[in-house]
């Protein structure tokens, strides 16, 4: 039986507006533009975080749009951070240009995360932006679907979606020497199962949020073993579309309709890395006890449900500032813990560590 290869991956391609390095290093295609762009957008985002004004969420959307357009259309290098850390470390001292290329994006994002928290996730990440946008557009479906009768419909849809994922992965038939290259399809299937479990029992949300570290460890193990793995965000960054990445991206976006920012919550390995850095970041969102009325108005607005019973989970918080903007009493604010001398040694605890 010949397969009707109507969906050939090479037919889809993201045309980059800029195909040559704007600020090349020597006689190479290595470009400083992505680094400067990320740094510039991070600084803008940090300023907007600190400055309290009524339309901050619109400003955030604008920064996200600029970042998405610039990363998708404007610059050509891939910005896969997890993969690039291993690759960059591998070639340090052998090919410093290559190491620079691989490490510069992560170094920039990590530096800003250490200072300002997960500013990349909340303000710059195109996948996060796409999930958020889709979730916002389909907010009405979640209200309706919360009714118990819809639970079965949701499961039926989940099973259908699972079938669709398998069918599409069969159709595209990743034909590499090792399937791990296209493993993101399976991570997406895993995400679907997690989402279904969490919808059945919301108390599992916290447990599966820690699942990101397992994903991060597994991906690192895969890379160190010597195999590449792609991600759902590859479709945004690369010049051509890999099917596994496209299918994963489609799956992640669809799941974000059911559960907001599902990928960011349970799977994102980059988010897990940045979460570890953000835990001790200089800028933290703290609560002013004198102003807080304890009415829980900050909880439902969080896109990743990182505030539970007045407790903010530092590792999961995206620094989107929605909770700060939602508080009518101005009880939440960004505090520079280094400056205020409030930096405390927090013993490792799997539980959220900061009380609003």
């Amino acid at each position, binding site marked *: *039986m*010949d397969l009707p290869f109507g969906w*050939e991956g*090479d*037919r*889809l*391609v993201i045309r980059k507006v800029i*195909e*040559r*390095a704007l600020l*090349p290093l*020597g*006689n*190479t*295609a*290595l470009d400083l533009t992505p680094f400067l762009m990320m740094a510039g957008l991070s600084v803008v985002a940090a300023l907007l975080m600190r400055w309290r004004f009524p339309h901050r969420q619109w400003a955030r959307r604008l920064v996200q749009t600029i970042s998405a357009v610039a990363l998708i259309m404007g610059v*050509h*290098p891939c910005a896969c951070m997890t993969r690039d850390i291993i690759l960059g470390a591998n070639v340090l*001292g*052998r*090919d*410093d*240009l*290559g190491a620079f290329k691989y490490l510069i994006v992560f170094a920039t994002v990590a530096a800003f995360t250490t200072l300002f928290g997960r500013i990349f996730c909340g303000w710059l990440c195109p996948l996060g932006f796409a999930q958020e946008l889709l979730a916002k557009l389909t907010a009405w479906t979640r209200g309706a679907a*919360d009714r118990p009768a819809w639970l079965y419909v949701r*499961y039926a849809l989940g*099973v259908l979606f*699972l079938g669709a994922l*398998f069918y599409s*992965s*069969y159709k595209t*038939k*990743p*034909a*590499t*020497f*090792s*399937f*791990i*290259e296209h493993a993101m399809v*399976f991570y997406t*299937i895993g995400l679907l*199962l997690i989402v*279904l*479990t969490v919808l*059945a*029992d*919301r*108390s599992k949300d916290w447990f599966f949020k820690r699942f990101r570290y397992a994903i991060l460890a597994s991906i690192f193990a895969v890379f160190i*073993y*010597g195999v*590449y793995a792609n991600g759902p965000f590859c479709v945004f960054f690369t*010049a*051509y579309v890999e099917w596994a990445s496209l299918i994963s991206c489609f799956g992640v976006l669809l799941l974000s309709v059911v559960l907001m920012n599902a990928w960011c919550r349970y799977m994102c390995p980059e988010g897990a890395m940045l979460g570890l850095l953000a835990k001790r970041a200089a800028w933290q969102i703290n609560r002013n006890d004198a102003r807080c009325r*304890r009415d*829980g108005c900050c*909880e439902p607005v969080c896109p990743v*449900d990182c505030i*539970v*019973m007045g407790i903010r989970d530092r590792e999961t918080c995206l620094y989107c500032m929605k909770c700060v903007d939602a508080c009518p009493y101005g009880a939440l604010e960004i505090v520079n813990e280094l400056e205020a001398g409030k930096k405390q040694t927090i013993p490792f605890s799997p539980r959220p560590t900061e009380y609003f």
Partner: protein
Amino acid sequence: MGDRALKSQIANRKSQVTILCLALSVAAIAAEVVDWPMFGLNPQRQGLSPTSFPSATLEHQWSTPPPRTLYTYVEGTPYWSSPCLATVAGQPLVFIGCYDNTLYAFNAHTGAQAWAFITGGPVSATPVYAPVGGQPMLFVASSDRSIYALDPRGNLPDEGKRKLWQVETLAWRGTVMPARMSNPLIAAVDGRQVLFCGVWNNVRSGTENVQRGEVLALDAATGKELWRRELGTGAVNTPCLGSVRGQPALFVPYEPGAVFALSARDGKDLWPRPHSTGDELHSGISVAQVNGRQLLFMGGRTAWAYCLDAETGQQVWASPINTWVDSTPAFAELDGRPTVFLGSYTYFIFALDAATGKERWRYRTRGIVQGSPALATMGGELVVCVNSLDDHVYVVAARDGRFIFRYNLGAFPWSHYRKGKTIWESCVVGTLAGRPMLIAPSYSGVVHAFAVGSRDDNAGPPRDSFWDALGESYTIPVVLLVVAVLAYTLARLAKARHRPAARRRRADASPH
């Protein structure tokens, strides 16, 4: 006619004359050895062999057993180099470098090993054969940082005299890393046979860190260094030879993303500045005369195939391939239309119009086509022979991409490889002692040889059945896992039926 136009015409004529001279000098070499003396057949890397197979009924002739078991995949190191074919003192030989640090010479008719030469590192670059001053010589660039000149004859009484000279491109020290050598080429420049080779040397040390990509020109007869030109810290890939403003020019792909035009006489730049590509450049370059204009063809990691004007380095056209191209393009005139053939990571073999870049046809294999195509005549029509990473060698018609032949060369011996980091073997064609042959090395560790015979070993065009897909792939264990998790989830769901959202319950219990 203005002065400028006149000068331009003269320069053009000069360039044509130089190309003709170069072609004649190559033809002079080729007349003696025919065969496939270097990567891409000639210094222009055009890959068009005069070999003519009487029919397309190819029979498997012989295959060599893997020289030894190699347990580890090393990034950047293929199992075999691409082969070099030559008839030396009446003996048809296949010269091929190997991952196990050895250069092998096999008898092309029987597959028996004629001799072997051990170097200090894996030999990934295609050897070059040429008679120099009446002496047949084989040049080998090994990742032990050395270029060797060997006596290629099969019946040397004293193996100790096989090595004629050795040039070490970087002195050994404790922290030295394996070098990356490009496929060398040999050409006559100002009446002297000169060997050109790109070298990337690395000393990985905190105190003395060397990362140097350079091009070397050596006197082929003596190994004396004529010039050496450093391009930067990145690797240098397969160069080709053409001409710029009437003087012989070496076009060198620099892996971090540039093309250099260097004078073959002294290594000086011939373009005002190197041509900057959009991304890394792993493919080699080929050069050909199209409509009186000398053009360079190459791929890259930007999802395009490019054509540059050899005189200026300006882009003439770019054709969307939509993925990486690491295959060095081959060139042929088809029905008076210049055509470029190349493989890509989308599994396709492409034929592009060399003048405009417009696609003429594409043929889909079932794996990445990283090998460089070899062109020959088979049953009276021009065919494209190429290795694909779906384990097969393919032969398709050059006119329309029609499937002709396929053979399974063997599976990958390692559990994985790093996509894009290793340029795997290419097949070659040649007439060895009067017998047209297709030699296809494979990453399975075996070198295969095909010739026209009574038995047809054609595996037929590729087909994908449902059971193939299921059996080959990962699906079964994943399906089992998913079914288990789904069953668990559904069981929990049946138990819980409808329970209020945990958060609301906790919120009710909270002290707010």
